[in-house]
């Protein structure tokens, strides 16, 4: 089974800190995604990537950046954390072709609190 691992389950940071959220998948998937989930708003796409060193903005990219230096790793960066970035962050991956094409597999999530 595909495994998507997020580095931290819970984080507490202070306003203005730089925050790194790491995501690693072990099935050679080309596609990787970062979502945030807030009560009443469902899942909203922040950034996604279809290849190494490639990134595309999702619906809410403001205040975030990403890095994909290796195929298996997709990092979400908050350059200067703010309280409105307190949320659950979910990483996912998928393959664009073959059996199970474009079926998303999610990590367990990282719950970030910014004080």
């Amino acid at each position, binding site marked *: 089974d595909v495994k998507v691992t997020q580095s931290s389950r819970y984080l507490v940071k202070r306003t203005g800190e730089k925050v790194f959220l790491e995501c690693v998948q072990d099935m050679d998937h080309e*596609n990787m*995604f970062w*979502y945030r989930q807030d009560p*009443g*708003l*469902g*899942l*909203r*796409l922040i950034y*996604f990537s*279809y290849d190494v060193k490639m990134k595309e903005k*999702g*619906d809410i990219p403001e205040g975030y950046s990403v890095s994909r230096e290796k195929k298996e790793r997709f990092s979400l960066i908050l350059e200067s954390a703010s309280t409105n970035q307190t949320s*659950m962050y*979910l990483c*996912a991956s998928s393959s*664009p072709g073959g059996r*199970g094409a*474009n*079926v*998303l*597999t*999610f990590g*367990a*999530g990282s*719950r970030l609190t910014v004080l």
Partner: protein
Amino acid sequence: GIQVEQSPPDLILQEGANSTLRCNFSDSVNNLQWFHQNPWGQLINLFYIPSGTKQNGRLSATTVATERYSLLYISSSQTTDSGVYFCAVVEGSARQLTFGSGTQLIVLP
């Protein structure tokens, strides 16, 4: 962009009851998936179903793409079915999923 609406927003069932969750979408889609998020936050893919009907144990799903809706059926519900059910779609030439706001299901023992 495409709009995805799920109903009902909340549902409380007694163990053993059946239920139907609905997902309406505003445009043609080439990819539709149902997910279950357990109380600890883990999202699990239930079905990839851009059209037709699929069954997996007590769960089944039907998508009528021409009428822009999908249904998720849960039969003989169990307490472990509790959580949030999300529908997500990909429209046209887009490559990313757009999620609905979910149905919160509580199954009482």
